[in-house]
């Protein structure tokens, strides 16, 4: 199992190197936007990976409420943290791209606002995990995770209506969706590489979480033994 994971990490690093090469050197420079368009190869895969992480978080939380096993809770914690990290990358790379292209850092359009609300919800999830004590953390966090995930489509629907004049999606929709073949190539490699990075980070964080729980249990046991002497 461990060797398999190490092989996967090596594969991920190789993929990441190749996809970075594709994105920065092979893919052609966009005609109107110029070099800054290359951020797209990192922005969209990060958004995708964040989405995957939050979905894993949702499934793991349901599984926890159903089975009550430490593993699914550790997976929920790991996926939420990794998801928030990728979501942060999305929220940082977006404005960097928007400033030269749109002329503004930020606009309250449907996608941007939904991503920001998503980020807020999962940060509150992490805060809740940090502030709750003892064995209650898992149940409370799982409940909040389900609330958060149910909220996302409602947020998107509301904000779409709220911002009916929002600019048409720049990528991946409508007449602009046809990427140049080399761009699509670089994009898909980055998508794969980022998904693998997400999985590697989730597995590592999951292991750390399980270790932390074992350490805590050992401390508790030691304290109990000390108390009886």
């Amino acid at each position, binding site marked *: 199992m461990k060797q398999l994971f190490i092989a996967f990490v090596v594969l991920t690093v190789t993929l990441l190197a190749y996809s970075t090469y594709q994105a920065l050197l092979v893919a052609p420079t966009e005609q109107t936007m110029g070099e800054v368009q290359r951020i797209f190869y990192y922005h969209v895969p990060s958004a995708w990976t964040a989405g995957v992480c939050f979905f894993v978080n949702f499934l793991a939380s349901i599984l926890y*409420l159903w089975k009550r096993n430490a593993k699914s809770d550790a997976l929920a914690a790991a996926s939420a943290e990794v998801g928030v990290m990728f979501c942060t990358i999305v929220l940082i790379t977006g404005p960097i791209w928007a400033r030269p292209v749109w002329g503004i850092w930020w606009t309250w359009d449907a996608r941007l606002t939904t991503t920001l*609300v998503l980020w*807020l*919800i999962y*940060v*509150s*999830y992490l*805060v*809740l995990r940090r*502030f*709750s*004590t*003892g*064995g*209650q953390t898992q*149940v*409370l966090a*799982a*409940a*909040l995770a*389900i*609330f*958060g995930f*149910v*909220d996302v489509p*409602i*947020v998107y*629907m*509301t*904000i779409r*209506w*709220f911002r009916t004049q929002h600019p048409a999606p720049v990528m991946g929709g409508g007449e602009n969706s046809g990427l140049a073949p080399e761009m699509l190539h670089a994009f898909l490699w980055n998508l794969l590489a980022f998904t693998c990075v997400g999985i590697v980070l989730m597995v590592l964080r999951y292991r750390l979480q399980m270790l932390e729980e074992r350490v805590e249990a050992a401390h508790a046991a030691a304290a109990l033994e000390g108390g009886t002497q």
Partner: protein
Amino acid sequence: MTTFSVTRATLHKDLRMEWRSKDAINSMLFFALLVVVIFSFAFNPTAEQSRQIAGGLVWVAFLFAAVVALNQTWARELRNQVLDAYRVSPAPPNALFLAKAIGNFLFVIVLEALMAPLFVVFYNLRSVGPLWQLIVVALLGTWALVVNGTFFAALSIRTRSREIMLPLVLFPISIPALLGMVDATTSILTGDASPDFWIKMLAVYDVVFTAVCLLLFESVLNAE
């Protein structure tokens, strides 16, 4: 013990306690009043401007005030281990939740009824659209805040620094509901747009989150 009888008994107890102490309603009223006054200084609006921004001001004031009451919801049940007693009793957990949610709903509705005239006076408000729509928005919107708020209050009572935890988890989840309330209120007050979409959306939000709350409350109540 049926759900209905337990709900009624708990609600009756809560309302009587509130009637005698008036803790929640007084603190909410004073808090909302402060928010109204401070906003008035901060924005200093004319009559036309205040019609534009009143929807936001009203609901932000009510949201903040509601948090004050919501934080007290479960605190009194912790004394003398009432919640633990409730957990070992055969009473259905959702009955307790419903009673608390309905109680909070009534408190916040009373607060809104008392504060509405003050808003009209301080901000020179006059609605262009029909008034009954504002009442529908207030009922749906208040339930949206209160049902999640009651749930998250039960959740945050089990954490460290509980008072601060409730807004931290409640506000992000409530963003769509708040947006709906504010936009519906503004479109009724200015008469510029139809609030129909927002009213429907608030109704959907209420149904979805009431269902989620009822589904998960038992797990949260019994969390160890």
